[in-house]
């Protein structure tokens, strides 16, 4: 299609077209970035859930809300359909290496021989086998409801942490629940583990893994020998035996069985977790689109104004066509085609711009932004739906301009 306007108007017409395309591209780039990054992150999380080595998770309201984690795990482990029960406590602590200051770190307390079976195939490859923690069952330090036994003082650290502070296996570091080295306990690095892409930033990358009871004692989520213990955990992850893990009905029965044991905690299956995540993702996508609709509305209003302006600028050309007898539908078709062409070019430009923005963030962004961008998922169908939606709306813009073209007074236009 040739742009409207004559030789003298061509540059002006081109400038209008470029501005309209740029406005649409800018309006489209935002939803492309938001939807692709949001969708990518959501898909990544869903993938993690689908590939997890456990099928049921127990959680409680409040921070570190599960009490009596060791004994609870033992009772669940006694169920015939269960192969592993892994209580997990996650606490932000401070690490001291040499004479340096406090390093914020995320510590995870686990029961080593229960933790490994609840890892999915991808996660499992990140950890050494068996976990080189000196108290595999966490039963030595945590001795029948008290913390009488000796602490192992073994810790695994993430490879980014080990690289950043040159901490080879065998090196020593100090761990403290507060940023005060005088309250720290000395630990020995017995191994390292990899860190998958995530959104926890430096704290997540600087992670530690140690026996649950060691972390509980260090952080005060357990009391001393002879005193009733809190024995706290955040979640308890339950792995079912093979035949049950893939059978939804049997999993539901297991879930009910566990719920009966812990009526005061929330027991959910990963399928439910995935559904909740998908639901949350849908809400977020809707929110992204609502946010983007502001920009899209501005872009479409701009497109409408440009098309109206072009009808006004080309009123003589339109008048000549109609005077000759060119049918109104042909004039309308020309205006609509112009709108659709500009909107399509703008949409495609917006997709390219969005892609470049996301790739730039993935290459040069910092921290969590970079990691989120690197997970972006450009789904062709979603992008096509976006383009079609915009093209559909551009027909409205074109319709307004076409109406204006049809209402031209011929005698006036040819004067």
């Amino acid at each position, binding site marked *: 299609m040739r742009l409207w306007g004559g*030789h003298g108007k061509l540059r002006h017409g081109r400038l209008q077209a470029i501005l309209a395309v740029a406005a649409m591209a800018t309006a489209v780039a935002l939803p492309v970035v938001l939807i692709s990054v949001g969708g990518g992150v959501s898909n990544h999380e869903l993938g993690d859930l689908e590939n997890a080595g456990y099928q049921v998770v127990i959680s409680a309201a409040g921070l570190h809300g599960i009490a009596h984690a060791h004994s609870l795990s033992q009772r669940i482990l006694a169920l015939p359909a269960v192969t592993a029960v892994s209580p997990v406590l996650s606490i932000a602590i401070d690490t001291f290496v040499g004479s340096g200051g406090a390093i914020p770190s995320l510590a995870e307390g686990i029961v080593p021989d229960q933790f490994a079976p609840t890892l999915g195939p991808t996660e499992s490859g990140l950890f050494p086998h068996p976990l080189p923690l000196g108290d595999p069952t966490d039963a030595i330090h945590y001795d029948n409801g008290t913390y009488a036994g000796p602490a192992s003082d073994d810790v695994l650290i993430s490879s980014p942490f080990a690289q950043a502070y040159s901490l080879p296996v065998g090196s020593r570091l100090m761990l403290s629940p507060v940023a005060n080295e005088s309250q720290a306990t000395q630990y020995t690095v017995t191994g390292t583990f990899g860190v998958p892409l995530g959104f926890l930033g430096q704290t997540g990358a600087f992670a530690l893994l140690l026996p649950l009871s060691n972390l509980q004692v260090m952080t005060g989520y357990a009391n001393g020998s002879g005193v009733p213990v809190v024995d706290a955990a955040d979640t308890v992850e339950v792995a079912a035996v093979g035949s049950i893990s893939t059978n939804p009905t049997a999993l539901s029965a297991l879930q009910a069985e566990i719920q009966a044991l812990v009526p005061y905690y929330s027991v959910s299956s990963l399928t439910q977790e995935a559904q909740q995540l998908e639901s949350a993702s849908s809400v977020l996508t809707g929110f992204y689109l609502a946010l983007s609709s502001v920009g899209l509305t501005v872009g479409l209003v701009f497109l409408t104004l440009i098309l109206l302006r072009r009808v006004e600028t080309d009123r003589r050309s339109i008048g000549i066509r109609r005077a*000759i*007898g060119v*049918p*109104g539908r042909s004039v309308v078709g020309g205006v609509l085609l112009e709108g659709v062409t500009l909107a399509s070019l703008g949409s495609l430009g917006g997709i390219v711009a969005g892609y470049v923005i996301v790739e730039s963030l993935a290459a040069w962004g910092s921290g969590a932004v970079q990691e989120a961008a690197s997970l972006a998922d450009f789904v062709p169908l979603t992008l096509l739906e976006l383009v079609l939606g915009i093209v559909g709306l551009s027909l409205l813009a074109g319709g307004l301009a076409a109406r204006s073209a049809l209402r031209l007074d*011929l005698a006036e236009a040819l004067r």
Partner: protein
Amino acid sequence: MNASVVPSVELVHVQRTYESGKADEVRALRGVDLTIAPGEIVSIEGPSGCGKTTLLNLLGLLDPPSVGEVRWDGRSVGSRTDRERARLRLEGVGFIFQRFYLLPALTARENVELPMRALGVPRAERLRRSSDLIDEVGLSGRERAFPHQLSGGEEQRVAVARALANRPGLLLADEPTGELDSTNTDAILTLLGRVQADRKATLLLVTHNPSVARRAHRHLTMQDGQIVADVREA
């Protein structure tokens, strides 16, 4: 396609008022009655603003009358819908505007093809007829030139070729030589005369130029929205 035939064109008590009822109301035509027989060459003369172009626009169905009727072959056509009037224009009327009014984004050939495209003439036929017309107006070799690459005379020749493209029975020319020098004026008038003679079309010429008016068989003079003289040559 055979040439369209417009047996007769008629205005009956036609008035045309712009901005009716407002302070700046303009009564461009004030009760005009006129009948033009097929094949006539009619000149319309008169001072600026006397209603010549309005008369032409009404006859060519560009503009509906405020009062009265426009008839083609005895049938009232002036107040038909936009769509119907567009179809009648496309099939029956060729316009030649004073300022050429070529579409600047189209080449000379594309401008000539425009009415044929709108009428749905097949491509091969369009090409053949546009080539013939461009030859006829003496512009062979200039088919691909855009209007801004043509001289004033060449532009008007393209406009004439475009007006003839659908073989109209009624040719309406609004000061067709108003912006041309004497050489180009003669060439255009000779061309129009030849075309009119060949096709037996009705030709209405609005002009200020006596040499143009001399080519007509019948001379209308207008003043203040009325026809004040209607002279037929013997």
